[in-house]
């Protein structure tokens, strides 16, 4: 973190703000009921609701692609080592693997593991950049579907201020 005369105070305010925003641990029964009601609302066509409910990598990959991933060094996952603001973490994925048809980005320490999934038709490059929320420090996993098989790589991202908020 940058050192300036008001740095400790700024950090304190950010932590307070983070604490106010991140109510995940304190979800009450009423809140859970609200979430269940929301889950019953109609989803957009083609949106993989089941995959977005999963709370671990294996569950997401099974729901999305029906298979497991093997590690690959042909996936380039560009994510910051330290994210000062968990609400906006820039993450980019690209791959030199052949016949890429899908890219997914997973954050296992978020309330739900799957953050975004992309469909890559023929003619579209195996590349995507986006901005994601991270509740706390976590591994970020980039999954690429290439020629019908799944490959993955991961990187640890330290989150200074959680981004359950918007």
């Amino acid at each position, binding site marked *: 973190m940058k050192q300036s005369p008001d740095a400790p105070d700024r950090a304190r305010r950010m932590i307070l703000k983070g604490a106010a925003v991140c109510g995940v641990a304190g979800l009450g029964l009423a809140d859970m009921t609200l979430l269940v009601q929301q889950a019953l609302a109609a989803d957009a066509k083609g949106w993989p609701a089941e995959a977005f409910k999963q709370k671990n990598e294996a569950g997401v990959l099974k729901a999305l692609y029906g298979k497991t991933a093997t590690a690959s060094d042909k996936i380039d996952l560009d994510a910051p080592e330290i994210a000062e603001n968990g609400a906006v973490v820039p993450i980019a994925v690209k791959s030199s693997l052949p016949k890429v048809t899908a890219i997914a980005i997973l954050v296992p320490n978020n*309330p739900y593991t799957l*953050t975004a999934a992309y469909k890559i038709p023929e003619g579209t490059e195996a*590349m995507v950049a986006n901005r994601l929320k991270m509740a706390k420090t976590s591994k970020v996993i980039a999954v690429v579907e290439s020629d019908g098989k799944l490959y993955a790589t991961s990187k640890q991202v330290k989150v200074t201020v959680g981004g*359950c908020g918007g």
Partner: protein
Amino acid sequence: MSTIRFRAVSSGDTTVVQSLIQHPMDSGFVKDKKTGKLIPPHHIEVLEFVHSGKTVFTALWGPAVSKNPYVKFAFKGAKKGDEIKVSWVDNEGQSDSLTAKIG
């Protein structure tokens, strides 16, 4: 005013597309400061880019995509002046679309 801001630039055979969308992307885990109640999840679920009748990119988004989301991708086969249609639908059934030319 459209919620979609969009820029596509062709260079050679490759077109790079960048888009910014105005959307709260509420996660469902944040409490309203005034009422103390959880703000229900409200996020884009599907974002699609279509070039000359063909879908060139589909984003499937959950509540952990940042507010006012940004996305960048690249595809082949388009040229300057071609049109791209961008459209999104969220979990409340709201939607928007925009057609713009590749620069």
